[in-house]
């Protein structure tokens, strides 16, 4: 077989194939439900209902989507410049750590500057954490996939060390968790009485800003050009290494905001289970969004919906929650293939 480019794909192809990919994912979900001994179509319905079926469910989904928007943006920004940042998990924890270091107990500064300061410090930590692998890539040619992946494990152990050591909450009854954040270090709720914090609003603003940066600024132009064809970018006079470094700073900073937002908006302290793999899920979010910053918001809602819905479905129908991970991984693969086939057709030699 051979792939033949399609010069001008029609709307049936452009929208039909991705729809087919989602349908195939749904079909797989039904099959898995069947294997697990549940009613196949009911399970899909339960997932949807659990994700979006009530005000409570919807808020839960929005809350879950918040860190995913940040990590999804982090991955989208990096992948767009062909910087394979798989270390969003580590950067998330770096951000969370900074939030706790500054905001827990009795913060050294107080008042309206505390939260912005926490956010900036978090971003700086995440940014610097990714700058290392990015520099190793541009200076020495070390593959950043492996270094960022390995840093995830190192970071988690580092956080574990701090939580059992200097950051341990003395009132924590032996559990490895940090002291709680001070009141003014907590992100307020968007609407009083609704369980949705300003982290979500911040995520939406971040998506908008990233989109403007990529499509309307010279830096964004450079990031895209370096990603699409670094040789041509270099020939045209673009500072390729600097662009990759700036991309790393932005990407790491965005992922770190996920940690800040989770600690400061939702949890109020730092534990080792702060992230159930938000960093890795960010890859799925970004790819399903085709690396488009505004698309990240939608795909984060979808991914969060599947996770939240699967939790609630699992309680009702007894199908293991891991069905969510399978469905999302499958959606990633199906969608990648579908997107490819919107631009190429399979031909015989």
């Amino acid at each position, binding site marked *: 077989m051979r792939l033949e480019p399609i010069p001008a794909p029609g709307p049936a192809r452009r929208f039909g194939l991705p729809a087919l990919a989602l349908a195939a994912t749904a079909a797989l979900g039904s099959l898995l439900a069947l294997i697990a001994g549940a009613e196949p179509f009911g399970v899909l319905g339960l997932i949807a209902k659990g994700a979006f079926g009530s005000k409570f469910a919807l808020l839960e989904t929005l809350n879950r989507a918040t860190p995913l928007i940040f990590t999804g943006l982090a991955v989208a920004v990096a992948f767009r410049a062909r910087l394979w940042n798989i270390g969003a998990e580590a950067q998330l924890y770096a951000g969370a750590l900074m939030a706790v270091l500054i905001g827990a107990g009795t913060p050294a500064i107080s008042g309206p500057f505390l939260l912005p300061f926490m956010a900036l410090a978090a971003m700086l930590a995440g940014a610097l954490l990714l700058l290392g692998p990015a520099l190793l890539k541009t200076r020495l040619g070390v593959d950043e996939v492996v270094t960022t992946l390995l840093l995830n494990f190192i970071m988690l152990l580092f956080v574990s060390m701090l939580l059992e050591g200097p950051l341990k909450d003395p009132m924590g009854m032996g559990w490895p968790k940090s002291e709680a954040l001070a009141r003014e270090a907590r992100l307020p709720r968007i609407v009083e009485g609704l369980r949705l914090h300003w982290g979500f609003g911040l995520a939406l603003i971040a998506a908008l800003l990233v989109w403007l940066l990529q499509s*309307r*600024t010279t*830096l964004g132009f450079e990031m895209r*050009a370096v990603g*699409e*064809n670094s040789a*041509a970018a270099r*020939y*045209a006079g673009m500072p390729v290494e600097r662009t990759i470094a700036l991309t790393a700073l932005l990407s790491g900073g965005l992922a770190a905001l996920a940690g800040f937002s989770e600690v400061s908006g939702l949890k109020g302290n730092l534990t080792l289970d702060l992230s159930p793999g938000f960093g890795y899920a960010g890859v799925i979010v970004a790819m399903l969004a085709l690396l488009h910053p505004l698309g990240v918001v939608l795909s984060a809602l979808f991914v969060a919906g599947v996770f939240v819905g699967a939790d609630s479905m699992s309680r009702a129908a007894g199908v293991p929650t891991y069905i969510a991970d399978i469905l999302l991984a499958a959606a990633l693969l199906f969608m990648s293939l579908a997107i490819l086939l919107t631009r190429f057709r399979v031909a015989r*030699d």
Partner: protein
Amino acid sequence: MSESEGGGEIVLALRGITKRFGPTLANERIDLTLRRGEAVALLGENGAGKTTLMNILFGQYAADEGTVEVFGRPLPPGRPRAALEAGIGMVHQHFTLAENLTVLENILLGAAPLAGLSLGRGAARARLAALSAEYGLKVEPDARVAALTVGERQRVEILKALWRDACILILDEPTAVLTPQEAEALFATLRRAAAKGLSLVFISHKLHEVMAVANRVVVLRRGRVAGAARVAETDARRLAAMMVGAEVERPVPAPRAPGEPLLSLDKVSTPPSGARPGLRRVSLDLRAGTITGLAGVSGNGQAALAALVAGAARPAEGRILLAGGREAGPGWSPRAALREGVGRVPEDRKREGVVADFTLAENAMLEEYRASPFSRFGWLSRRAARARAEALIAEHDIRCPGPEARIRLLSGGNMQKLILGRALAPGPRVILADQPARGLDVGAVAAIHAKLLAARDGGAAILLISEDLDEVMSLSDVIHVISEGRLSPPFARGEMSAAALGLRMAGEGFADAA
């Protein structure tokens, strides 16, 4: 065409071959026969359909219509394996060798059934030595291909075919990368092979080579057979007429007094990169109102020289001087080159010239996006980019769906027009044109050449680098020859014949000849 000439059995017959790529007809009802021990040249300009035809013969494409018969038996279409087993060997224009494997490994690749338990290196080494001796093709079996010269690599390719007992050898533009002297050695090998009963198909667009090697010539033009003749019964002029159809007028630039040097290299050296030589104390003046042509076989330092002029590299020794004798200094970069008014047309337009998934508008501002009107305070103006693209499309007759189309959809010629137009737009004082016409159709070539001549007449200093000696000789006011990283003194237009330049290209006549 008549097929009655010559004796010997017919080993290969192509009948009514037609191949379309989308709307374009690459081959149309082509017939071709080849006899034992015969050497047939397939002659035609770039884009005449020669390579397509050979790829069909070799099974890399399947023809839409028509049949291929080898020794009277039809060849199943689209299967290189079948072609190999039928005794067809092909030496591709771009070698198909794995650089990190050894010569012997490259030859053994695919030669034995995959299920075998042993490569049989020992026996293979002996057989390779025998074949080398028999055909006068000297190779070092355990050398990594990456360390070989272009000529040596070609020998490996030919040995690969002979190893598989090929009876029919197809050579696609085999001399494009050789010096005239290496080409002579190749011709000797080919004559020896034909004398041993091998049949040859030799693809070329160079008349004199065809006359030197072939018994018979088949001329292709726009995908069709435009004529055929026995070499003994024709001459170069008649073949040229068949090949080109209506004679193309090469523009003859009016003589012009050379102006001030706008960019000079002063005893510049660069380190070698891989198997490619660096520059060795090269001095060169690019003068206002002058096209300076660089003749040479590819891989002799052209890339290093082009990189210096483009700002993509800095010299290890020596100086780059700008207009008025200012030294370019350590800040020399693509951006500095652009700032100093150097317009650049890179050698590999898809790799360095454009970002394929960007739109025409985005590609149009690729070199100027940081400056007004394309951006202010880091904020891009899409309108300015679009306006620039529209202006280029109109001025350079770029055929495209519009400024917001992705540039990957354009043909090579239209892509090149955009790159040249982009380089010319800011009014450059120096222009680097690296292989500006390579692989383009006749119309695009004429358009590109006309723009370069107009820029020259407007006072620009142009460096023209090309593997096509005819192109260099017809456009240039002065010519330098480059060989092994050394540069000859400048020769004025018409001062040297093609043959004399060819000797220089082979490395003769250099003061520090090694």
